[in-house]
């Protein structure tokens, strides 16, 4: 299958800092790919290079079969000739234009007849749910509505590619929740290819088909969203996607159906890992706080992966409890439903399923 966007060996420096360190990325047609990573990892630079707002030092970018950047051949197609849409972190709606004028601007630049502009803007305004606000100025609208203008403006040219640069980071959580689902539905319905940059792994999971994790200017790993979440291939990804309990240990027994690992907690059993480990190898294990069950002492009859501990602290977040439980000198974080309310200092037993343990190579 042909790719919609291909980035080959992109390198971009800003003075001393290397923002992109030999980045390769292929985006399939009609796919939404999210690029996640901490700030300064190069994700925004990568997006801006695809947009043409930044010129890489080296490499090649191909969009829908056309070379838009090639350092060897000296090709650089400016952003206004790439025919893409983009939604910005700061909304970037023009304060001196009405909603209508903002969305119509790309069409006006292309000298499209007035009645057609009118028709297409109207369509888009319905698409992004801004009916009745055509003649308002951005400062009269909420942040969420402003971001919808930005989205409408990006869609009005019916681009093949749309880029999102942390579009939710200036919106409050409730608005963002609705908008990101709307974005996914819209982009999928219109069959557009999208690159979506965010620092929020949950946002990426909601919106994207695939996720690329970036760190220090490199793409660390890339894969289907659920795999990145459930089966991260390295410790950085695991920690970035929010796995909160980290346990070090050593593989002591290696069977076909399970392995046993010696840890500070005690002997721990888990499913054969998807990475290649050998007996006696040092490994790091991750367990999600929500994958651990907390039971009153003495706990279940079956003692596999059951560890006795004492509740050190308890905080209520509204829909769940966060317990910090001390087990053999280690501290584990447990998210429990609101109906499991246990006093601090109580003896408890923590239990988790062998399939929920993520095992990764130990050497950092």
């Amino acid at each position, binding site marked *: 299958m042909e790719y919609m966007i291909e980035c080959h060996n992109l390198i971009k420096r800003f003075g001393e800092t290397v923002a992109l360190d030999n980045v390769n990325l292929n985006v399939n047609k009609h796919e939404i790919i999210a690029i996640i990573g901490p700030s300064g990892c190069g994700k925004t630079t990568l997006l801006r290079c695809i947009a043409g707002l930044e010129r890489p030092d080296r490499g090649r970018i191909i969009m829908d079969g056309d070379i838009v950047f090639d350092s060897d051949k000296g090709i650089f197609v400016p952003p206004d000739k790439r025919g893409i849409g983009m939604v910005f972190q700061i909304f970037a709606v*023009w*304060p001196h234009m009405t909603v209508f004028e903002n969305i119509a601007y790309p069409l006006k630049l292309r000298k499209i007849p007035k009645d057609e502009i009118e028709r297409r803007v109207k369509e888009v305004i319905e698409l992004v749910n801004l009916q009745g606000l055509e003649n308002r100025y951005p400062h009269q609208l909420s942040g969420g509505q402003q971001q919808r203008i930005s989205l409408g403006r990006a869609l009005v040219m019916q681009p093949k590619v749309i880029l999102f640069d942390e579009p939710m980071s200036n919106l409050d959580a409730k608005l963002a929740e609705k908008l990101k689902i709307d974005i996914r539905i819209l982009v999928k319905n219109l069959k557009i290819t999208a690159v979506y940059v965010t620092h929020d792994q949950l946002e990426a999971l909601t919106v994207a088909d695939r996720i690329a994790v970036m760190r220090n200017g490199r793409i660390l790993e890339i894969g289907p969203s659920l795999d990145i979440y459930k089966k991260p291939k390295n410790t950085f990804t695991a920690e970035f996607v929010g796995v909160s309990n980290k346990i070090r240990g050593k593989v002591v027994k290696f069977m076909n159906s399970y392995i046993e690992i010696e840890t500070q907690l005690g002997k721990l059993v888990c499913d054969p890992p998807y990475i290649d480990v050998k007996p006696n190898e040092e490994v790091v294990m991750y367990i999600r706080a929500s994958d651990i069950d907390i039971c009153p002492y003495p706990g279940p009859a079956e003692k596999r992966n059951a560890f006795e501990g004492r509740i050190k602290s308890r905080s209520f977040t509204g829909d769940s409890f966060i317990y910090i439980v001390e087990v053999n000198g280690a501290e584990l974080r447990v998210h429990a439903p609101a109906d499991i309310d246990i006093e601090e200092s109580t003896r408890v037993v923590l239990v988790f399923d062998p399939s929920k343990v993520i095992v990764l190579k130990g050497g950092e």
Partner: protein
Amino acid sequence: MRKGKLPSSSFFPNIILFIVMLMVLPPIVILFLYSLSNASLGKLSNISLTFEPYTKLLQDSTNIKSILNSLVIASLSALFGTLIATFTAWIIVKTDTPLVGKLEPLLLVPVAISPFLYALSWTTLLDPYIGIINILTNILIGKTLLTIYSFTGLILVTTFACMPLAYIVIKPFFEQFDSSLEEASIISGASKRVTIWKITFGLAVPTMISAYLLAFVWCMEELGIPLILAARAAIPIASLRIYELTLTWPPNYNVAAALAIVVMIINIILYRIAQSIIGKKQWTTVGLRGFRKGVMKFGKIKYLFLSIVLIYIVISSILPIIGMVPMSLSKVYGFPSRLEDIALDNYVRLLSKPLAITAIKNSIIIATLGSFILLVFTFLISYIVNRTAYKAKNLLDTLSMFPLSIPSIVIALGIFLYFLYILPTFIYVSIFSIMLGMLIRFIGHGTRAFSPVMKQVHQGLEDAARISGASQFQTIKDILIKLMIPSFISTYTFLFIYFVRELPLSILLATSKNMVWTAAIYSLWELGDVRLVYAFACMEIILILSVRFIGVYLSKREERKWNI
């Protein structure tokens, strides 16, 4: 990670850089050459370097006295000005004194018109013969109160004139002052008086020092006030002396240049010190979260504060300006004591003089056209500096700001010598020489006005236009310029005012053929016809204040339109 800018060709920026270099560098280079040689007019080709101008400078006691006098006047005026500014700013920002906030524009009148016109206005009050106050005290107590043409007069007027400058530096400090610092002191058991003294003013000291140094620098280079007040009393003042040395025959350009360089070095050192104080972050009490603004509540004493501010405004702003009006309308020489002495005769007589008409016409042409050229040019400079990846953009920025750091009389002399050297006579005696000179003098003012505004316009707004399919030019036209309209209006109006009221360059370059407004006022003053002077000065003040008012009104209106 938004440091990267769109790539663009460096051909156009190179041309801009080249023009800026041609504008700002030669005046200073030529000034140094003159100060280090015996070069006379137009003979820069075969000069030998010597320190003779500096030895000549030191041999003449008038020169030494002029520097010392300038230092004394600057140090005292800046001190008084800073103290008044601190106290007034504190009353306006940090106390609950009523009304004072609305009166603020009146405090700034001395800088809003120009020091030259301001000094002129004081002569209507304290001239030994025709000054209104002196005439009154002569009647009441039998002697004149104070001759404005004196050391005291110089310090008085310079103090009033530099106070607004110190005020502009100190006011933001009080505005950003976190009230919880004061509350903490009061909770710790300190009285209100101790708190104001030790905490509020105690923390203000570094800002006051930097305000003092900036006011000092300004007083050192100011020419307008000594030109009116010191020349008649034959008090040597450095800035005035530089000017006078160009008037002797044969002109003493080398010594003038040497004196100019001495003044420049003194000012640059003081300016650097002030900058380093402002730059030190440990003094700032700003930027913390939970920062609280607040005023202290005062009892009846706030009415005392109000009356102090009122009296100060009446003395420093209202009286001198009001003094000008009857004087300019007087048929007799001096204050019109009878109603039938009041008429528009002076204005009619003035406007029948071809020189005055030429001066007004020239000034309006130079200001209208010159500030437009500068507006476009400095916009381009700011664009290159803030929005492109041009390699030499820091150099361009520094060079365009360079004239700002040079005392006005010094850059004026440098431009004057530069033009004498390069401009053919028919251009030199035309208004183009004056306009060109002012473009050099004020290029930094324009860049300084644009750069912060352009930094405020988020680049994402322009990126969005590029993505939407706009070319770089369309983006500038449809987005950047539209969003900057308020600052275009305000920058244009203040440049216009600067161009109209500019003094040192005008009196150095103006001849009967390219006479300009301010220089014409000065030449009338030299001729001694004060009624015409006051009429002409009144007209200039009215022009300046109305342009300023219109500019503020229009830019505010534009700003409100989109709520940016």
